[in-house]
């Protein structure tokens, strides 16, 4: 989608949850470690299902994991 960006706090949330590794998070939500890495780096926007699963793992609301930011033109 042009002109917008979805940011996330997964790295920070992992760190605050006993320094959970990407592989541990990947196993909990049923994706590969490479997919978690791609999500963290903002290269891949996950489906709603995976987004909610990530929020559920960290026991936080979805908007604490993902933030929508309109890009400045």
């Amino acid at each position: 989608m042009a002109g917008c960006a979805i940011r996330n706090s997964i790295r920070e949330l992992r760190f605050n949850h006993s320094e959970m590794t990407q592989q541990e998070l990947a196993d909990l939500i049923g994706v590969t470690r490479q997919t978690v890495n791609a999500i963290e780096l903002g290269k891949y926007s996950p489906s709603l299902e995976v987004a909610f699963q990530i929020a559920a793992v960290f026991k936080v609301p979805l908007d604490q994991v993902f933030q929508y930011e309109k890009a400045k033109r």
Partner: protein
Amino acid sequence: MEMSFREKSAWISFVLIVLVFGPYFWLVGRSLAGAGHVHGGTQFALIALFFALEVVVHVAIAVRSPRDARAPKDEREVLIDLKATRTAFYVLFAGTLISIFTMHFRVTVWMLSQFVLFSIVVAELVKFARQITLFRRGL
């Protein structure tokens, strides 16, 4: 970054296609130019060889990382597969049309089969190349 099982699989298939069909189409090219001859059964033997090598090498990497190999594709991998297959479809579509077009130039059945096989091989190469690119980029 460490490669996932699917990315390794795409690399293996890409390299095997180049190694198995590259020399074959070089020989076919020479044959079409009148500088050699390719036995009719070579085509089927190479296809069988390609599938045999695919199985052997994939089993070898699956043994090294059994958990990754057993895991179903996740949503990103499925999306990468779909995008790559769509790109390959256009290549195969164009190749098929060109193959049909060559029939108006008195080509033999053997030559026509080479054009069709070439279209399939190029389409598969494009598919794996696109998969590798998407895996590297994240998507």
